[in-house]
């Protein structure tokens, strides 16, 4: 008895392909969903904060205080508007009409001109944690700019030296450039894990697995034949993300296609194997979906560096994130879009994904039984 017959594997593959193309749900999930996810996440995940409404009261009403407010307004970050009393501004922050409030004290100009470092109060909405660090950063810059403006000095002369910062790889610090390469990982995870887990559980649930197992078809042939269509679909998902990144969000692509494609194929393989493993241990579609969400999707989004930077996680979570291939794939994908490192620089994530693939596949072959128990 042959262990692997191409004819039988091809028969399983063709059958599976027909299932996919006749089931609108699968096709929508595999092709339309990635597109929607890129559009939605690409447009919504925005770490740059702009146009913050800033209420201000000016008790000094001098030329200096006017210049300070102007500096806030001339950056794109703030939209200052005047309120009569601090209480009114405070009420605006509470009711979220304003995100921040600026209070300029009476003797601002006098103290400034006599080098007594006047205090200017800023109230920030601390309940909105997501934008607060960005706003604090802007305040430092505005502070320096405002000082120069009030003193009527060109910026160069104000300090003995100045940091001239240039952001490499992403000059405008566009957060989309950073987030979109990671979306491919989330989409592949969704398509590969969910669909594979569902398709094999369906065979168990409907009883067709019993018929299949009574034929000469081997476990390996079933696995290869059933996984192949979903590998193709996952890869289409990746192509959609890539095209959307380049054409809609104008991302650059600095790296090598060979590196990115190798990483993508390895990553797809990892997640197909994970989906397969889920279907082997659960046998039921409903259970499989729960497993897929818990060990597939959540860690892919949360513990992969896609949303939360890995280097700022507690150490234990950094280790946990290393259990999931998504972390390594996102590392390579971001790198190839923006930085273009070589194989030599990326050997760690590649090796990690490769080892994970071997472990997952061995686990599948070990747990897959040709029995109904």
């Amino acid at each position, binding site marked *: *008895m042959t262990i692997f*017959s191409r*004819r*039988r594997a*091809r*028969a*399983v593959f*063709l*059958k599976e392909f*027909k*299932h996919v193309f*006749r*089931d609108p749900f699968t096709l929508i999930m595999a092709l339309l969903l990635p597109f929607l996810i890129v559009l939605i996440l690409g447009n919504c995940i925005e770490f740059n904060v702009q146009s913050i409404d800033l209420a201000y009261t000016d008790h000094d009403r001098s030329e200096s205080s006017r210049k300070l407010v102007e500096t806030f307004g001339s950056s794109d970050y703030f939209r200052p508007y005047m309120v009569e009393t601090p209480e009114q501004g405070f009420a605006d922050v509470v009711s979220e009409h304003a995100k921040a409030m600026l209070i300029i004290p009476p003797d601002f100009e006098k103290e400034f001109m006599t080098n007594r470092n006047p205090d200017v109060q800023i109230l920030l909405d601390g309940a909105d944690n997501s934008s607060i660090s960005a706003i604090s950063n802007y305040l430092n810059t505005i502070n320096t700019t405002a000082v120069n403006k009030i003193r009527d000095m060109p910026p160069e002369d104000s300090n003995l030296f100045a940091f001239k910062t240039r952001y490499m790889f992403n000059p405008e610090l566009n957060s989309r450039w950073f987030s979109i390469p990671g979306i491919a990982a989330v989409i592949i995870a969704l398509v590969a894990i969910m669909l594979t887990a569902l398709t094999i559980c369906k065979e168990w649930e*409907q*009883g*067709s697995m*019993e*018929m*299949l*197992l*009574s*034929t*000469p*078809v081997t476990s390996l042939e079933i696995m290869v034949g059933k996984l192949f269509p979903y590998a193709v679909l996952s890869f289409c998902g990746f192509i959609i993300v890539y095209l959307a990144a380049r054409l809609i969000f104008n991302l650059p692509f600095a790296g090598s296609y060979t590196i990115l494609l190798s990483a993508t194929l390895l990553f797809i393989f990892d997640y197909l194997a994970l989906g397969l493993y889920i279907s082997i241990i659960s046998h039921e579609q409903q259970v499989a979906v729960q497993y897929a969400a818990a060990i597939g999707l959540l860690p892919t989004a949360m513990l992969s560096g896609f949303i939360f930077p890995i280097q700022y996680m507690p150490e234990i979570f950094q280790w946990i994130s290393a259990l999931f291939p998504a972390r390594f794939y996102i590392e390579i994908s971001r790198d190839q879009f923006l930085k273009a490192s070589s194989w030599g620089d990326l050997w760690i994530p590649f090796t990690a994904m490769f080892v994970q693939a071997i472990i997952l596949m061995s686990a599948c072959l070990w747990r897959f039984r*040709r*029995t*109904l*128990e």
Partner: protein
Amino acid sequence: MNNVVIDIENISKNFGRTKALKNVSMRFCTGKLYGIIGPAGAGKTTLFRIILGLMAADSGKISFSFENKNLSASSFREITAYMPQTQSLYADLSVEEHLEFFKDLYGISPQTYRRKKDELLQITHLDKFLDRPAGKLSGGMYKKLGLMCALLRSPKVMLLDEPTNGVDPISRREFWDMLHASVAEGILVLMTTAYMDEAERCGEVVLMEEGGVLGTGEPRVLLEREKVSSFDEFFLRRGGLR
């Protein structure tokens, strides 16, 4: 002659505390249509799954032989076709696509396939429904398609688990004709059923209840021996004794 023998000795199987099979022994030989008769939960499906190696027995032994030579379990599976009780076909695949699929799984050559397909379509009258998806077939046609897929490989042994369940009377008669034709061709046919009236159409019956064998033999001989007029009565009387 294609002589297959299945020898089952003292097989037991438990699912947790439920005793699905209790020390069961039986023997099946080519040339007869065996009916394994019993109410739901008698252990019929478990018996088939153990014969096919889809489940392992807790104790006992099964041996197979073909033309007086011993067969391994995997070689036995090579010559056996199985039709599970549950709907096990693919609802979105058409009749023809099913045949093509199983043709490849069984490794049947194109010439044999063409001949076998025409022959089977003629017997089952499914030739007009080649393009119809299995999910849109009637209960009887669905079962006939299942039987066609099983017969496609020209098996030496057929295991049919409740093949006539949910099938209309006319299709049932056609189905039985197909089974008798298969036996005449030298195929060992084992089927299970919960319909007592079907027992009398079998060459030999094995009556099962709650994991045990109540009696075996030719239907009429068995009925005479037990002094009952039908298998319904047989099971009722047995149940009353308990």
